[in-house]
C-alpha cells in the first residue's frame, strides 16, 4: 500500500545515527512497518551514504544495496543511517569523521566498532533491528560491548552488492538485534544468492532457532583465553560455556596455533584491499570536488589528504606498502599463506567439534580515548579476526556483565552452518533466562 510511513523521531542521546528519516516509507511483508537502522557504509538509494567519512559527504547513491532491497521487499522501514568508524576502520566508532557514539550501557565508554551506531541504536531501544558489517569483528565487537546479539554470516551468504568495500575478501553484512530470534529473522530476510555479487553463494537461510543442543561438541581453543584476555571476562565466558555443558553439550579444549599469525594476516590483507578500494575517492566523482585549477595529481593528493581521517590514511599507507613491488611477497603473499593456515586450523578443529566458543572481545568496552596507540587497539581484534580470515560464521550473544558492563560469548561454526551458531546462541539465551 503506497504512502504508509513510520514516524521516526528517536531520542538519540547516544548519537547512534548520522541521519534519520522522520517519515520512513514501508510496505507489506514479514517486516511490515518494522523500523530498521542501516550502517552508513551500506548504499541506500536517495539517502546520503558517507561511511562516516568527509570524502563522501553529500554522496547520495542512485541504487539500493541488495540487502536494503530485500529489507524493503519484506516491508521494513529504513529509518536511519548509523554512525561507524570511518570506512569501518576501527574498534570503537571513535574514528567517525563526524562524532563519536556513546555506549548505552555506560555513556562514558565506547560502543565498540566499527558498527557502533547500529549496536547503540538497538541497545538503546531506538530500533529493534539493525544492519552492521563485519570485516574483522565490526558486528560482534559492538554487539558484545553494548550487550546485544550480532551475527557475522558465512562469507558469501549475504550479498555484498552495495556495501562500500573496505576489505572485500573478509567482510559480510549481518544482523544485529536484542535477541537471537530477532537476529535470525533479520538474517532470513537479507541472506540468499545475488547474481550481482560473484562471491555470493546460493544458500538461503530459512531457520527457526532451536535450543536443543544435547550431544553438541563445543571446542574451546586455549588461545581464546590467552594473554590479554581480562580474567573477569574469561570467568564470565567460562560460566556461559558451563551453562551450555549443563544443557547437554560436550566441551572439548583444543588448540588453534594459527592464532599467532591471524592478526598480522588480517591487518596486511585488509589494509592491502582497502588501499585499492579507496583509490576511487579522488574528488572527481563524489564528495567535495578536487581543485580543478591544479594539475590532477596534485588535486587528487590534496583531496585525499583532507578528505580521509588519520586512521584511514594510516591503513591506506600500510596497504600500499604491503602491495609494493619488492614487499608483496614479504607481506601480502605471506599474509595469504597465514590465512590458509587459519582456514586449515578451522577445518581440522571442525572434524572433532561442531562449534568453537570463547569470548568475543578480550575486555569490556573501553573508556573514550583509553586506547590511544593503534597497535593496542588492533590487538583487541585478536578473537574476532579468525572467523573473517576463514569466512566461517560467528555470533556474539550477551553472556553476563563485568562491573555492569556487558560481555559477549562468541560462537563460531563450520562454513555455511550459520544455523548452528544461531542455535547455540539461542540455547544459551534461553538457558540463561530460564
Amino acid at each position, binding site marked *: 500500500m503506497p504512502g504508509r510511513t513510520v514516524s521516526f523521531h528517536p531520542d538519540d542521546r547516544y548519537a547512534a545515527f548520522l541521519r534519520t528519516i522522520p517519515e520512513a516509507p514501508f510496505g507489506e511483508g514479514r517486516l511490515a512497518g518494522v523500523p530498521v537502522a542501516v550502517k552508513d557504509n551500506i548504499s541506500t538509494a536517495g539517502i546520503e*551514504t558517507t561511511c562516516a567519512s568527509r570524502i563522501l559527504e553529500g554522496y547520495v547513491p*542512485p541504487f539500493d544495496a541488495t540487502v536494503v532491497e530485500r529489507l524493503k521487499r519484506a516491508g521494513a522501514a529504513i529509518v536511519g543511517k548509523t554512525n561507524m568508524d570511518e570506512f569501518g576502520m576501527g574498534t570503537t566508532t571513535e574514528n567517525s569523521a563526524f562524532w563519536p557514539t556513546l555506549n548505552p550501557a555506560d555513556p562514558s565508554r565506547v560502543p565498540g566498532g566499527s558498527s557502533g551506531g547500529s549496536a547503540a541504536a538497538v541497545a538503546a531501544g531506538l530500533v529493534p533491528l539493525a544492519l552492521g558489517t563485519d570485516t574483522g569483528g565490526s558486528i560482534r565487537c559492538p554487539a558484545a560491548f553494548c550487550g546485544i546479539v550480532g551475527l557475522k554470516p558465512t562469507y558469501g551468504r549475504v550479498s555484498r552488492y552495495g556495501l562500500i568495500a573496505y576489505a572485500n575478501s573478509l567482510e559480510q553484512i549481518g544482523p544485529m538485534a536484542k535477541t537471537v530470534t530477532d537476529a535470525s529473522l533479520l538474517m532470513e530476510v537479507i541472506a540468499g544468492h545475488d547474481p550481482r*555479487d560473484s562471491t555470493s553463494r546460493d544458500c538461503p537461510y530459512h531457520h527457526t532457532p532451536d535450543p536443543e543442543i544435547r550431544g553438541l561438541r563445543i571446542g574451546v581453543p586455549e588461545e581464546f583465553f590467552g594473554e590479554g584476555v581480562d580474567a573477569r571476562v574469561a570467568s564470565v565466558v567460562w560460566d556461559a560455556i558451563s551453562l551450555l555443558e549443563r544443557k547437554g553439550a560436550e566441551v572439548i579444549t583444543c588448540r588453534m596455533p594459527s592464532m599467532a599469525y591471524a592478526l598480522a594476516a588480517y591487518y596486511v590483507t585488509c589494509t592491502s*584491499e582497502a588501499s585499492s578500494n579507496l583509490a576511487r575517492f579522488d574528488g*572527481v*566523482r563524489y564528495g567535495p570536488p578536487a581543485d580543478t585549477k591544479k594539475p590532477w595529481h596534485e588535486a587528487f593528493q590534496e583531496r585525499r589528504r583532507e578528505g580521509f581521517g588519520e586512521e584511514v590514511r594510516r591503513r591506506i599507507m600500510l596497504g600500499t606498502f604491503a602491495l609494493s613491488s619488492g614487499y608483496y611477497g614479504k607481506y601480502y603473499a605471506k599474509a595469504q599463506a597465514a590465512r590458509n593456515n587459519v582456514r586449515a586450523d578451522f577445518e581440522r578443529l571442525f572434524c572433532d567439534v561442531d562449534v568453537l566458543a570463547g569470548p568475543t572481545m578480550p575486555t569490556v568496552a573501553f573508556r573514550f580515548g583509553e586506547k590511544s596507540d593503534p597497535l593496542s587497539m588492533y590487538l583487541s581484534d585478536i578473537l574476532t579476526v579468525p572467523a573473517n580470515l576463514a569466512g566461517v560464521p560467528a555470533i556474539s550473544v550477551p553472556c553476563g556483565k563485568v562491573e555492569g558492563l556487558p560481555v559477549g560469548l562468541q560462537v563460531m561454526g563450520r562454513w555455511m552452518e550459520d544455523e548452528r551458531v544461531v542455535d547455540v546462541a539461542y540455547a544459551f539465551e534461553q538457558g540463561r533466562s530460564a
Partner: protein
Amino acid sequence: MTVIVGLEIHCQLDTATKLFCGCSTDYRDDPPNSHVCPVCLGLPGSLPKINKKAVEFALKVAKALNCEVPEESEFARKNYFYPDLDKGYQITQYDKPLAVCGYLDIEGDEGEKRVRITRVHMEEDPGRLVHKGGADRPKYTLVDYNRAGIPLIEIVTEPDLRSPKEARRFLNKLRATLEYLGVFDSEKEGSLRVDANISLAGSERVEVKNITSYKGVEKALTFEVTRQKNAIRRGQKIARETRHFVEARGVTTSSRSKEMEQDYRYFPEPDLRPLRVRNWAEEIEIPELPDARKLRFIKDYGLSPTHAATLTGDWQIAEFYESLPADLRVSTATATWVADTLLGELNYRDMSIRGVPLDHFKELLLIRQAGEITEKAAVEVLRSLLDQIRDTGTCELPRQCIGRLGLFVITAAEEGANDPVTAAAREAIAENPQAVADFCQGKKEALNFLVGQVMRKTRGCAKPGDVNRVLTSLLSGDE
C-alpha cells in the same frame, strides 16, 4: 643491423555488453556518459560481474592463436591513479592470464614465419578524457565513461618480428583471424591500440605507445628504425625509454613525463572468482580460419595461391567471394576481377570493403558474366559506383548506372538492318576510303583498323564478333 620488434596489441572485443555490467557497448554515436551504470562508473558498493560472452570470445582468440589454456585464470587489480580510471584501479589479468604460449603463422620477409604469442589476457577499457580547447594547452578536460568497461584482450608477442613490414603483416593476419572469429570489428574507431617494442640488435629497447592504426604501426616502426640507426651512426647510445607515436606527423616523441617505473601493486581481484577456463575452452568451437580457407579456395576453386591469399585475407571479401554462383567462383576471371580490380579500385580510393554494397558488385559481375556489358564497361561502371559511394555514401543500382552511361552491349541485327553497329560500320567505311581500298587489296590489317574505328564509335559496347561480321558483309556488298 637486425631489427627486433615485439608487439602488445589491445583489441576491443565486439560483445553487445560491457565486460562487467549490462551496459551496451554501442556508444560511439551517443552523448558522453550515456552508456554507464553504477558498475562501470565504479560507484562505491558496486561489484563487477563477468560477461561470459567476453570470456568465450577471448577463449576463441586463444584457440585461434594456438595457445595453452590453463586450468584456472584469475583477474587482478592494476592500481594507479588517472582521471579516466573510475575505480582507481583497472581490472585486468596478471600472473594467471587466460592463455599463454601460442603462435600465429604469417607471410614474413623471408617466406612463411611463425610468430610466437607470449600471452593473451582480458581486461576492461578505462574511460576517455576529452581535452577542450586544444590538446597542447587544454582549457579544461572532461571525462567520458562510455568506454569504461568495454572488454579488451591484450595479445603479447615474443620479439619475433624483424621489420616494420613484418609487424604490419602480423597485424593484418591477426585482424583477419579475429574477424573470422566474429569477435572483433576493426572498423570501429579506437578498437585497436598497439604498443610496440623495438630495438636494433645490441642496443636498448624502446617502447612506442599510442599507435592506433594498422598503417600507423609500420610508420611508427619505420620512423624508429631510422631514428635509432641515425643515433647509433652518430655514436649516440639508444636510451631505454617510452615514446609516443604522433600519427598526424608520423613521428615518435619522447614522453615528457618523468620515466618513473610505475608500481601497479597488482593483487588478485577479490570481487571475482577465478575462471575455470580449460574445460570451457575445450567446449568452444572456432570457425575455419584464413589459412584453412585459403587452402580450400586453391583446392575447390582452382585459384592461384596469390589470389586465394588475397581473397581470404579479409573475412568480408572471402564471404563475398563465396556468395557468388559456383560457376563464377571457379573462374580465374572472377578471381582477378575481385582480387585485382575491385580491391585495387577500393585501395586506390582508400576505401574499405565495408560500407560498400557488395550485392551491387555481385550483380555487376553477373551482368558481365551474362555478356550484357563488356569487361571494359564493367570496370567503368565499378569506378563510377565507387566514386558515388565515396562522394555521397550511396550509389545507383548497377543497371541504372550502365543505362545512364549507355554501356549496355549493342547487338547488331541480322543483315541489312539499320542498327547502331551497322550505322557505325557504314560511317567508318565512309570516313576511311584508304582502309577500305587496302582491305579490298587483301590487307587483313585494314579490317582490324576498321573494327577499332567501329568500337570507338560504339564506345566499346559493340561485340567484336558482331562488328567483324557486319563490316565484312558491308565491304563485300560494296564490291
